[in-house]
């Protein structure tokens, strides 16, 4: 079965520190990859997505992610975090060309940024 792993459960950083959140998936076929963010008390919002092409994708608010096919990974990065980045971050994977539009989510990583 397809699964998505986020190994960091809770990450605590000081402002201006660099961030990298890990995401690995288990599906061997062609996939679409996503990072969603959920700010406290809010709904999920798309940060960035990868479908094809350049494996380094840039998203909103200075976030980027790199798809490494050989490692089945799609890690999220930001060079310098801000207090406002405190949120829950979810990696998600969806199989391409499937009739069932099912997005599989990881268990999330809580990021706390200390001012």
């Amino acid at each position, binding site marked *: 079965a397809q699964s998505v792993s986020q190994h960091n459960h809770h990450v605590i950083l000081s402002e201006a520190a660099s961030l990298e959140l890990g995401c690995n998936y288990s599906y061997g076929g062609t996939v*679409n990859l*996503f990072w*969603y963010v*959920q700010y406290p008390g*809010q*709904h*999920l*919002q*798309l940060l960035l*997505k990868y*479908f094809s092409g350049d494996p380094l994708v840039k998203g909103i608010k200075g976030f980027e992610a790199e798809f490494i096919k050989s490692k089945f990974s799609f890690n999220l990065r930001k060079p310098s975090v801000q207090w406002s980045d405190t949120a*829950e971050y*979810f990696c998600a994977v*969806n199989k*391409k060309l499937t*009739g*069932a*539009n*099912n*997005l*599989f*989510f990881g*268990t*999330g990583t*809580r990021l706390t940024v200390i001012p």
Partner: protein
Amino acid sequence: DTAVSQTPKYLVTQMGNDKSIKCEQNLGHDTMYWYKQDSKKFLKIMFSYNNKELIINETVPNRFSPKSPDKAHLNLHINSLELGDSAVYFCASSLGTSGYTGELFFGEGSRLTVL
């Protein structure tokens, strides 16, 4: 204008009751979803409808019954509520299988508390 809207935002009820959560999207999408987020923030798909037709039905108790009167609405009815049903329920929508890119647009969630 809110793209995906859910009502109610908060719902507190007793065990054994029946309740409904409504969802509407004004994005012109033809696929809608219900996701359940548990207390550990894990997101799991429950149902997906494409043009009013059920296409994903995960292993959800049959006390949960989705209804899609048209492609802009997907309601969730829950019978005989149990303590374990307490969660945040997110509605989402996306483009359908033709032109599908995998991106989901989420509502703000409905927090259900069963006492």
